[in-house]
């Protein structure tokens, strides 16, 4: 064993020991650099409302985006049991839809990257409908999910903006589905305004979702609308190849060999973009809530 190898092994062992002994990070498996770690006991941590593009007039915003509203810090307060709280603080980030069938809401965090290499997105999340009825309501939330919005550097030959999307389709038209899906197409681009400087597309349109291999997974939904359990998500993506490299939800590891992200021509103002979104969609005329306890975004660089 060379001195350098020994040094590298020691550094890895020390890093792992420090991670595993840190109560805030021990439940994550981050890559070598932590880009951001958000537990929402320190505020919104840069997660904000995804606002649609517009020019001159807000009426030019696509309806899919116009429905979005700001996320909030929630103690998961329920009428029957009080505040549920997060995993180790009182707070979680809450993303809420409007009470209209098919309504969606999206929260976003915007970074740029330093190196085109592996990145990892980890989160602890849960979801519920608004507890307006004294019933289980397990088919009221249509989906929850996440997406990345990525584009290479201005000098590295990047030709595409790449948007991996993954959702848990909980239910559709009142029937439980309980499976993971990806999508590889968006709507056609539409110019916004008259100056040819802004365009828009609706990548969360309901069409085009496809099942992951072995897509089915039953989660811990619990027994009434006001009891929740936190679920672990982990998605790996390589910024060099712009391909998914792994997906895990709790105890299940999924095959992403056939995963295809949305890929559209590169845009003129988005170089090195590294955006992360989480979304929720309701299947009924009842608000659906996505709660996010914590998120760790890491990379190898």
């Amino acid at each position, binding site marked *: 064993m060379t001195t350098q190898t020994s040094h590298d092994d020691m550094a890895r062992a020390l890093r792992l020991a420090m991670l595993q002994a840190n109560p805030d990070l021990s439940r994550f498996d981050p890559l070598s650099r932590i880009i951001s770690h958000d537990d929402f006991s320190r*505020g*919104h941590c840069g997660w904000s*409302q995804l*606002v649609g593009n517009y020019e001159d007039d*807000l*009426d030019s*915003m696509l309806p899919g985006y*116009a429905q979005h*509203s*700001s996320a*909030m*810090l*929630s*103690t998961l*307060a*329920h*009428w029957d049991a009080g505040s549920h709280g997060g995993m180790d603080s009182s*707070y979680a980030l*809450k993303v*809420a839809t*409007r009470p209209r069938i098919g309504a969606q809401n999206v929260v976003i965090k915007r970074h740029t990257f330093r190196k085109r290499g592996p990145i990892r997105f980890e989160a602890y999340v849960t979801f519920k409908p*608004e*507890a*307006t009825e004294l019933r289980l309501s397990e088919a009221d939330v249509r989906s929850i999910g996440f997406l990345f919005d990525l584009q290479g550097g201005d000098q590295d030959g990047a030709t595409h903006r790449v948007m991996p999307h993954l959702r848990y389709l909980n239910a559709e038209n009142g029937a439980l589905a309980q499976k993971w899906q990806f999508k590889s197409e968006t709507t056609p681009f539409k110019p916004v305004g008259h100056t040819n400087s802004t365009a828009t597309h609706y990548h969360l349109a309901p069409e085009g979702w496809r099942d992951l291999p072995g897509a089915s997974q039953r989660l811990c939904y619990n027994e009434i609308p006001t009891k929740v359990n936190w679920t672990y998500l982990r998605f790996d993506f390589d910024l060099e190849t712009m391909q998914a490299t792994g997906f895990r939800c709790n105890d299940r590891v999924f095959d992403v060999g056939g995963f295809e992200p949305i890929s559209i021509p590169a845009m003129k103002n988005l170089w090195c973009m590294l955006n992360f979104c989480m979304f929720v969609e309701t299947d009924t005329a009842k*608000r659906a809530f996505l709660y996010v306890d914590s998120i760790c975004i890491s990379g190898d660089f």
Partner: protein
Amino acid sequence: MLAENITAIVARNERWTGAAASEPYEAGWAREAVVFIRALKQPGGKQPVVRVEISPDGMRWLPEGAHVPMPTTEDGMAILRVSHFGNWLRVAADFAPDAHSTVLVTIHLKG
């Protein structure tokens, strides 16, 4: 540690008619809230009072007491200040059948 301070957009370019209200917003961490209501377009008809409402559960709402007339001109603004609101917060207004306003409602929280 700096105090938390968040601006939330709870209604953007929404045309309010009838019994209108902003979406429920949880802000139990905040000690104070300032709410601005801006008319993005020329309001139509007689403009009602807009009021702060609070709730024990985000589903059942009561007036908190603060209220102010809705703006009567395009880009006109109304402001409401509130503290001791518990967790849930929204603003609401009741429009006559021929009245409407297209609003931007922003909540500014500090705690």
